[in-house]
């Protein structure tokens, strides 16, 4: 694993560099507490989805989860409709918030397990399966909501998650870091984590070694679904209303983040901390370009360039290519 530590160091360096550039061109406002809070509040939505994509990629065998944002929207939309049908948001605000969060998480979990079941039991290729469920989830959300936005309102607890600060840090960001920490611990300290990575590295060996492959796959996609549910809650908490077509651009950005974080698309390797750092890097870059008043097409271009850079640096010994005395081993 030659990129193991390197990727993380590189991401940290890039984040520091982006902050420095931001401070330079904005005369300091980029580092103002308010902007840092604003950026920290913006990134959890996409961060949850990126961790989900990472988990699916780690499972190997072409694993990917394209249904993330669709499932996040479905969780928000369906939970808002279900909870509002038996609780008024004007009633007990805390009960409403907790019910909303619980139902959204359950929907995310069930949706993720559904993905896992289709992939492990019916042996459907993950990219096709999650493309299908993406449309299915979106479709259900459209039918449930009649294609319109659904009001969640801002009951106290939810509004605190979306807008509140704890010791100056947005609560949504703390939730994100907490969830990321849990997933990281899950991967590092449980047999599930070991099985997932080994299975991704060599599925055939995993079969012969008698790994509970189907159960690992279902658990992987269920976790991814659960994270989508969390994303749905954050979206609802921040935006007051939820809609089925929110964040359609997130799908590709989540994959971009995962690849930038050095997750191997072939499976078997990925670190949550790198995904978190990559999410921060993309957020910094995107906010930086908005600060500079540049066209958003420039942002897409910059992201693309960054992604290709990471792929090139991670996969080929690019530095070796450029410094001839080290390139003997390359060919």
């Amino acid at each position, binding site marked *: 694993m030659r990129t193991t530590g390197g990727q993380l160091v590189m991401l940290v360096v890039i984040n520091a*560099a982006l902050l420095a550039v931001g401070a330079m061109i904005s005369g300091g406002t980029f580092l103002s507490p308010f902007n840092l809070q604003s*950026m920290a509040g913006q990134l959890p939505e996409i961060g949850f989805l990126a961790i989900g994509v990472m988990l699916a990629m780690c499972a190997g065998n072409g694993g990917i989860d394209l249904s993330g944002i669709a499932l996040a929207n479905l969780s928000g939309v369906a939970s808002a409709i279900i909870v509002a049908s038996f609780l008024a948001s004007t009633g007990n605000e805390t009960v409403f918030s907790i019910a909303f969060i619980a139902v959204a998480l359950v929907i995310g979990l069930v949706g993720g397990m559904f993905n896992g079941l289709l992939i492990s039991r019916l042996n459907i290729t993950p990219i096709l399966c999650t493309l299908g469920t993406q449309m299915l989830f979106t479709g259900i959300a459209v039918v449930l909501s009649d294609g319109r936005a659904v009001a969640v309102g801002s009951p106290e607890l939810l509004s605190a998650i979306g807008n509140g600060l704890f010791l100056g840090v947005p609560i949504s960001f703390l939730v994100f870091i907490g969830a990321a920490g849990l997933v990281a611990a899950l991967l590092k300290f449980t047999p599930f984590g070991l099985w997932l990575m080994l299975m991704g590295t060599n599925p055939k060996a995993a079969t012969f070694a008698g790994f509970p492959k189907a159960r690992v796959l279902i658990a992987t996609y269920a976790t991814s679904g659960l994270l989508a549910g969390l994303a749905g809650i954050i979206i609802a908490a921040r935006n007051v209303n939820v809609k089925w077509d929110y964040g359609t651009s997130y799908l590709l950005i989540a994959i971009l983040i995962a690849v930038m974080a050095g997750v191997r698309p072939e499976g078997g390797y990925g670190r949550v901390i790198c995904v978190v750092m990559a999410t921060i890097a993309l957020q910094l870059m995107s906010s930086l370009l908005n600060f500079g008043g540049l066209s958003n097409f420039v942002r897409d271009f910059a992201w693309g360039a960054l992604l290709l850079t990471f792929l090139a*640096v991670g996969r080929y010994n690019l530095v070796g290519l450029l410094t001839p005395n080290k390139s003997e081993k390359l060919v």
Partner: protein
Amino acid sequence: MGALSKKMLLGSAMALAVVAGSAGALMAQDKPVIATIVKISGIPWFDRMETGVKQFQKDNPDVVATQYGPATADAAQQLQIINDLVAKGVNGLAVVPMDPSVLEGTLKRAMDRGIIVVTHEADNQKNTHADVEAFDNADYGRALNKRLAECMGGKGKWTTFVGSVGSRTHMQWVGAGEENAKTHPDMVLVDKNNESFDDANGTYEKAKEILRKHPDIKGFQTSAGNDVLGVGRAIDEAGLSGKVCLVGTGLPNPSQDLLESGAITAIGFWDPQKAGMAMNAVAKSLIAGKKVEDGADLGVPGYEKVKVVKGPGEGVLIIGNGMVLADKANYKEYLF
């Protein structure tokens, strides 16, 4: 570690070059900053609006007015731009919401920070100080129908097209049109409210059917942007250009050929350029602490005597008279 740090260095140098190369210089601004955020950048409608924002900037050197917009049509992307601009510290936001309901939370946060929020095409937006609409929907529908009646000589069969019967504004337009047609007893409405789904091809097929079913039909009033193209093509191919009247919402550039051939009698629209200027003008006076009163002149053509009513939230609804009816004679003034 040597190779590793070189790798790092190279990667970050590349990334930095990308950022530094693309990031423009930013200066501290003392003048009030008004940011216009559109649904999506790079499409003709909002490019036209940007010409208005630039014009406003030229006419008002005491403010800084710029236009921003996401590269993809996604409310989440528009929302991020607004969040970043709020953090950067603008004084006014002029927003054309991708989806008014999804922006409520973000706009509320902006307003809580003392930023003036002006919206456009969002008469249901609650968290805004003022929503600017180009015209009153009933007035627009009536104006389209007046033009149609004039062309039809006040008699004959006519029909209407809407994007979908669920589209509130389209139904208001044709509804007002029907009301106006009642002043011409010889105008007979047949098969009304055909749904076009803004698809020129589908509209073309449907218009052909109507021409077959009612060979003596004299007029069409359409609503969605592509309807005039579909119906116009059907009229043109049937060799009825100039004999059957067609008035509807449309944009000058795509309608050029059909306007020239006479298949389209007139198109109605509002000019995004003027709407952009009006939004900025409202934002500027609200930032200065002034109020926009009923009958005020925003200094923008079509917004010389605006109607101000209470909006759905705390803010007001500012309605101009910015509709444009263009025909063969004058569409060239509005090519976009």
